[in-house]
């Protein structure tokens, strides 16, 4: 198979205006990926699928990744005049890198039996701008998986034929796979009596009638539940 650089060059020539970056992968797995721009994503995807040498016709895995806002600290040595003397002083600058959501596609070729080529798309931000073009028209296998990303990460896929929640119920509001998701604290009892689950559950539930034996539950300290 061609190298990612070759694929990038050929795709950029084939699709005018397309912008592709190579995202390195430092680990031992050595699976670098192509970051494609959102505007031309469907065209690039179509190129990857239909190009005779590539024929990446099998989209195996589609998934989302949540990257939170980061603060990158940079320490630069700056020369300053302190008390008439020139000294090197460390100056720390903080740069805020806004977070984004990412959709990652693992592509293989069944025709040529090669792969994987990994492509990724990034949203503008994690709120209203969390939109990406859907690649379901190119690869049907993305249908359920993009729905799952929409459900769990909240990326809206433009052009998806049936974008609904898939694993959570329709009335559910948040996106549970996001890194800043806060668990609801009103779920049912868990009988591990030392957990903070118990403390929370105590706030939410009055004990059940005598039959259940629930009123006998004590926390580690031996406090009985308040009625």
């Amino acid at each position: 198979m061609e190298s990612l650089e070759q694929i990038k060059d050929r795709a950029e020539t084939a699709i005018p205006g397309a912008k592709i970056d190579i995202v390195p992968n430092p680990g031992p797995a050595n699976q670098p990926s192509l970051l494609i721009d959102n505007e031309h994503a469907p065209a690039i995807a179509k190129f990857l699928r239909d190009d005779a040498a590539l024929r990446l016709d099998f989209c195996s895995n589609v998934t989302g990744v949540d990257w939170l806002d980061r603060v990158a600290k940079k320490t630069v040595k700056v020369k300053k005049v302190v008390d008439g003397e020139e000294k090197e002083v460390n100056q720390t600058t903080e740069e805020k890198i806004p977070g984004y959501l990412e959709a990652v596609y693992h592509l293989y070729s069944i025709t040529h039996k090669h792969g994987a080529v990994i492509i990724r798309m990034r949203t503008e931000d994690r709120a209203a701008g969390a939109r990406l073009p859907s690649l379901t028209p190119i690869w049907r296998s993305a249908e359920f998986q993009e729905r799952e990303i929409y459900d769990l990460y909240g990326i809206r896929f433009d052009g998806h034929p049936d974008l609904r929640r898939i694993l959570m119920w329709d009335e559910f509001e948040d996106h549970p796979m996001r890194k800043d998701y806060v668990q609801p604290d009103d779920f049912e009892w868990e009988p591990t009596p030392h957990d903070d689950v118990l403390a929370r559950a105590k706030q939410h539930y009055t004990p059940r009638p005598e039959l259940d034996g629930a009123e006998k539950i004590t926390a580690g300290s031996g406090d009985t539940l308040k009625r």
Partner: protein
Amino acid sequence: MIGTGILKGMAVTARNFVGSYFDEERLITVQYPEERNPLPENYRNFPFLLYDGDDPHAGLRCVACKICEKECPPQCIYIVKSDDKKPDYMGKPQFYPKVFDIDISVCMSCQICVEVCPFEAIKMDKDFELSKRERFNHLLQRKEELSKPNEYYHSICPTEAADVDAKLAAAAEAAAKKKAAAAPAPATPPAPSGSSSASASS
């Protein structure tokens, strides 16, 4: 001819039906709970705490290091460390768990607590009939219910228990030698635990 396939299938069922009365290979069910298949030695279900000798408190191997509590994937172990210390099987003073609880309903018998324990203090049990009468308190196994003697471990996993004993004995011996080399005073270390009831409960 249409129907031959079905007749052939019928012949197979007939063979199985007749075979189920005397053919060893087709006669596989047992009438649980009156009859029971023997459990393989590797079988695991729910952990227990090991102690040496007769006294579950004095012989308890657990030193409340809390590694298993940290590594347990479903977080079903709860440990409170003691304030004082008691001698372990090598005579070294160690902490012990004041509280050691495992929640049956959360534990998934994955054996990770056993793998990460550096003191051979927690092992997997074979008791699978764990149903309880009460929903909450009974499902929480306390330290007293969890502690079981080394003889019990030998009875359920003889090979593995013998290996563990040999390993501990070797460690105790090495420690004793080191001690003897460091201090020439005749310090007799307590006997390594083993399956004998000559215990470290001194």
